[in-house]
């Protein structure tokens, strides 16, 4: 499951792992991942100019391709 890759990275980067949630939505052949972290950790998973989030997307693409799927990642603002 591609979700595990994002979970692993997010858990490793945040200060507050208890707030890390990755939800997975299936739309046909596409998987949409939503990553939620504590507000204080948003910067850590997004990075300057979105560099961290984009690096996660690059690895996610590889992981999804191995499962013959396509996957996207959104970092969602905490409520």
């Amino acid at each position, binding site marked *: 499951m591609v979700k*595990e890759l994002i979970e692993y990275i997010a858990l490793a980067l945040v200060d507050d792992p208890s707030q890390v949630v990755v939800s997975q939505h299936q739309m046909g052949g596409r998987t949409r991942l939503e990553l939620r972290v504590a507000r204080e950790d948003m910067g850590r998973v997004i990075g300057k100019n979105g560099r*961290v989030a984009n690096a996660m997307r*690059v690895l996610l693409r590889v992981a999804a391709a191995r499962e013959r799927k396509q996957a996207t990642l959104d970092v969602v603002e905490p409520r």
Partner: protein
Amino acid sequence: MEDGKTMLEVIGPTVEDAIEMGLDQLGLPREAVEVEVLDPGSKGVFGLGGRQARVRLTFGMIKKEAVSDTGTVQKIETEQESLSLDTLTAEENQRSLQVASMVVRDLLERMHVRAKVSARYLQVPDEVEQPTVLIEIQGNDLSILIGRRSETLNALQYLTNLIVGKELSRWVPVLIDVQGYRARRERQLRILARRMAEQAIHTGRRQVLEPMPPDERRLIHLELRDHPHVTTESIGEDPNRKVTIVPKK
């Protein structure tokens, strides 16, 4: 170390690799150390999940053997001192290697990429303040790990650096290579730099190269730094920043 001996424990894919890595780290020849195999390791069913080999290198016996004149003794004793000072960090350095290779293994596993991962230091840890960890990934058909303009490799390296830094609570530079790709690419870039420089001189016009990541641009600048007839500069913004080669007037 009253008896002048110090130990270093190293892990590696095989016993031989572990010994090599240890000697590399210490900057010592094979004859200078005593090797004790703590764990011969095992291959594991899928290449992944195998146990690494563990060896202990004992060194510091040089003093008794290699003495010809007072100058030599002096020099060896100084080396001994610096080695003993660094045995504290030798453990830290060893842990950095372990953490870095573990992070890369974890990431690859979750990317469903099966490969062999080994870690060693690029420099002798005793000689530089912050040695760079080199992670080498070996396996079949790993082009997927490199990607267009080494995009995947750089993303993997970037995230690994962040995770390792967080885990160790200090910055440890980690360089990742796949199947010797970086060395090959370096050679190609040097040749490219030379060729484009010649073209710049020949045509009298500036040559604009493909967009490249920072480390690759740096290599081009370095290669042509002392070139008598061209200068180089980078233009544009990442990720589309490009090196241009300008003929000197």
